[in-house]
C-alpha cells in the first residue's frame, strides 16, 4: 500500500497528541468569502501528522466542518450532495437512530447544539501543554478572526486530563483508567500494541486494520475504497469526526455502585470492573479476573492483548461489559471478521473538575467527557456501534439490554454479571439502571486534508 503523506493529513487524525489540556472553539460563518480567507489565514496554524522531531509543540490546532459549515463556505451543491446522508443530516436529526432519546434527546442539549437558527459550522481544536499555551494560541487565532471577519466564536469547551498529584493521568470521572484500545492502522506510525488491530486467522496474533477504515481514499477492510465525497482530492486523507459532550452523573454512579456492591459477593471494585471490562487501574479482567495487576495494566504488550474465546459464557468478563460490547474481538466467532469494519479511533478528554473517591460530588456539577471519534464512515462505524452494540444487545445475545454505563436506561433495564459457582464471582443482576451519562450535544464533522483545506480556502472545489 502507498506510504501515508503525513504532511497532508491533520495530526489529530494520525495520533493522540497526549497533551494534557484542550479547548474546542465552535465557529459560525456569515459570509463565504470572509470565511474562506479565514481558513487561508488559519492554514499556517494547522498541525499536520508530521513527527515532532524537535519535541512536542506548546499547542496544536486542527479544524473540521459540519455539513452546514461546508454549505456556508459555498462548496458546489453537486459536491455537497455527495457527502453521506448521515453527515448531511447532522447528528441531531439522527437522534432516534442513535438512541438519543429521553434525557439524551436534543431538547435537553446545551443551547449551542439546539439553536434552530445559528448552527455550528466549524470545530477548531486546540490542544496544549498548559492553559497558558491554549490562551496564547487562541489569541493568535482571535487575531486572524478579527482581521478577516471570517467567523464568530459561538462557544468554547474546555477539556483536560485528570490530574492526580500534579501529573496528568488517563483517568475519567467515574474513576476508570481510559486511553486504551485505539486501533492500529496500516501505514499510521505510532507505538502499536497487540490487541489493537484485527485478529489473524490463528486467533492469537494481530495485524493493523486497513487504512481505509480511518482515512478516505485508501483501501478498507472490505477490499475497496470506502464511499467518499467527490472530488477525490477533497475527500482523500480526510475523515469524519463525531463530537459528543457526555455529562457524567458521578453522584448517581457512586451511589448505585455502593448499593449494588453491598449485595455482590465479589466486592465493590470487582463489580466496577465488571461494568467496564477493566479494573479501575486499567487491568483487563479477561486477563486478570480476580484482582488488578499493574504489571499487566502498564505493559503495552499485555494491556490490550486478550480475546474472549476462552470466556464465551462471560464468567470473567460479562457479555454486556462496556469493553466487550464496543470491541467484541472474537466474541462473535469467525475470528473477529465481523467486527473489523466497526472500529473507531477515540480522541476525547474529560471536562470539569475531578473529584477523588472521598470527595463529595453532585450530579449537577458540570463534569463529563468530550467524546470524539474518527472513522471513515459514520453510519457503518460509529452509528452502528452506538445503535446496535450500545443501545441494544442482540449481537451479544443480550436482547434489548443496553450498555450499563452508556445506555439511556431511564430507570429501567438490567445488567447481568455472569459468574461461576465461587463465592467471589457469583452471578449477579443489577436492575433499574439509572442514566449515568447524559448527552448534552454534539454533531458530525468532516476533517479535511491539508490539500483539501487549501482548496476550500481558495474556493477551488470542483465537483466535476
Amino acid at each position, binding site marked *: 500500500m502507498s506510504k501515508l503523506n503525513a504532511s497532508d493529513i491533520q495530526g489529530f487524525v494520525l495520533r493522540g497528541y497526549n497533551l494534557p489540556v484542550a479547548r474546542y472553539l465552535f465557529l459560525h460563518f456569515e459570509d463565504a468569502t470572509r470565511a474562506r480567507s479565514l481558513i487561508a489565514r488559519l492554514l499556517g496554524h494547522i498541525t499536520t501528522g508530521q513527527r515532532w522531531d524537535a519535541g512536542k509543540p506548546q499547542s496544536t490546532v486542527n479544524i473540521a466542518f459540519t455539513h452546514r459549515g461546508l454549505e456556508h463556505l459555498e462548496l458546489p451543491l453537486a459536491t455537497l450532495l455527495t457527502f453521506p446522508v448521515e453527515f448531511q443530516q447532522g447528528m441531531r436529526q439522527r437522534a432516534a437512530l442513535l438512541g438519543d432519546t429521553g434525557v439524551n434527546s436534543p431538547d435537553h442539549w446545551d443551547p449551542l447544539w439546539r439553536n434552530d437558527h445559528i448552527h455550528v459550522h466549524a470545530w477548531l481544536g486546540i490542544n496544549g501543554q498548559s492553559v497558558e499555551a491554549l490562551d496564547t494560541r487562541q489569541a493568535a487565532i482571535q487575531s486572524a478572526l478579527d482581521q478577516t471577519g471570517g467567523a464568530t466564536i459561538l462557544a468554547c469547551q474546555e477539556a483536560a486530563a485528570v490530574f492526580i498529584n500534579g501529573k496528568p493521568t488517563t483517568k475519567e470521572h467515574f474513576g476508570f483508567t481510559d486511553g486504551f484500545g485505539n486501533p492500529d492502522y496500516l501505514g499510521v506510525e505510532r507505538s502499536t500494541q497487540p490487541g489493537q488491530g484485527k485478529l489473524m486467522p490463528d486467533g492469537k496474533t494481530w495485524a493493523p486494520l486497513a487504512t481505509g477504515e480511518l482515512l478516505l481514499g485508501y483501501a478498507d477492510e472490505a477490499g475497496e475504497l470506502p464511499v467518499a465525497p467527490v472530488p477525490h482530492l477533497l475527500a482523500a486523507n480526510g475523515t469524519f469526526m463525531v463530537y459528543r459532550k457526555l455529562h457524567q452523573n458521578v453522584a448517581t454512579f457512586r451511589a448505585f455502585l455502593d448499593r449494588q456492591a453491598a449485595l455482590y459477593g465479589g466486592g465493590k471494585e470487582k463489580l466496577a470492573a465488571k461494568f467496564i471490562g477493566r479494573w479501575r487501574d486499567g487491568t483487563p479482567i479477561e486477563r486478570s479476573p480476580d484482582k488488578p495487576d499493574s504489571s499487566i495494566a502498564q505493559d503495552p504488550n499485555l494491556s490490550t492483548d486478550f480475546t474472549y474465546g476462552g470466556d464465551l459464557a462471560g464468567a470473567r468478563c460479562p457479555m454486556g461489559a462496556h469493553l466487550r460490547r464496543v470491541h467484541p474481538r472474537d466474541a462473535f*466467532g469467525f475470528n473477529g471478521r465481523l467486527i473489523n469494519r466497526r472500529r473507531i479511533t477515540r480522541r476525547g478528554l474529560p471536562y470539569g473538575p475531578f473529584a477523588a473517591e472521598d470527595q463529595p460530588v453532585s450530579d449537577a456539577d458540570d463534569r463529563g467527557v468530550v467524546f470524539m471519534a474518527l472513522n471513515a464512515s459514520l453510519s457503518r462505524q460509529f452509528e452502528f456501534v452506538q445503535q446496535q452494540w450500545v443501545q441494544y444487545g442482540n449481537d451479544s*445475545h443480550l436482547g434489548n439490554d443496553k450498555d450499563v454505563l452508556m445506555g439511556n436506561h431511564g430507570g429501567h433495564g438490567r445488567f447481568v454479571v455472569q459468574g461461576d459457582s465461587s463465592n467471589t464471582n457469583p452471578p449477579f443482576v443489577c436492575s433499574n439502571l439509572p442514566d449515568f451519562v447524559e448527552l448534552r450535544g454534539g454533531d458530525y464533522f468532516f476533517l479535511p486534508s491539508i490539500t483539501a483545506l487549501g482548496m476550500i480556502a481558495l474556493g477551488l472545489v470542483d465537483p466535476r
Partner: protein
Amino acid sequence: MSNINGKVYALNVITPMKPWKTWILRTAFFVLDHVKPLQQDLVNLSFIEFARWVVIPRNDFPYLGGDQKKEVLKYDYLLFFSNFNGTWNQYIDAFSAVLSRGLNLIWRWSEKFPGSVPVTLFKEYIARVQFDTDYYYTAYPQATANDLKSAHIVQSSFDSLNLVAGQSNPQQFADAYLHFVLAVQDHLGETGEAPVVG
C-alpha cells in the same frame, strides 16, 4: 407495505439464470447441504430466523389454465427469501465479510452477479434484484433468533428446576437454584422493540 415487522426483515430477491447453469446450482446446493459447512456458518451468524432458496425452472411457473397465458421464458429464476434480524446493511456486510465463498457458489450462476466481495457492488446488485414485501407477519415480533434460542434454554432449565423444587430441602434447592442461574445467566436479555432504522 413494509419489509420490517418488529425485529425481523423480509428480503425478497429474484435473479435470472441460463437454464444450463441451473443444474450446477442444484448440485452446489446438494453439496452445501451435505457437506454441512454452509448450515453451520448460517447457524453461527445467528441473525437469520428462516431463509430459503427456490429454483423456478422456466416452464414451471404455476399454470392453472383458464384465461391465464402460459409463460414463455428464456431464463430459469432463483428466488431467495430471507427473514433476518438487524438492518439490511448489517446483513449484507456480515455475509460479504464471512460467507462470501458460499454466496458466490450460489449466485455466480445468476446473470450479472458481481461477486459478494467487495461489498458495495454486491449491495448495488441486491438492491437491483430485490422486490418489496406487501404483508409481513411474525408470531414473535419482539424476539430475534438469538432471543428465541435463549428463551428455549431458559424454558428447559426452568422445567428441570421445577421438577425438583418441591422435593428438595431448602439447602438442596438453593444449590439447584444456583446451578439453574448459571445455566441461564447468558440468556436473560429483555425482548421488545427493535432499534429505529434511518
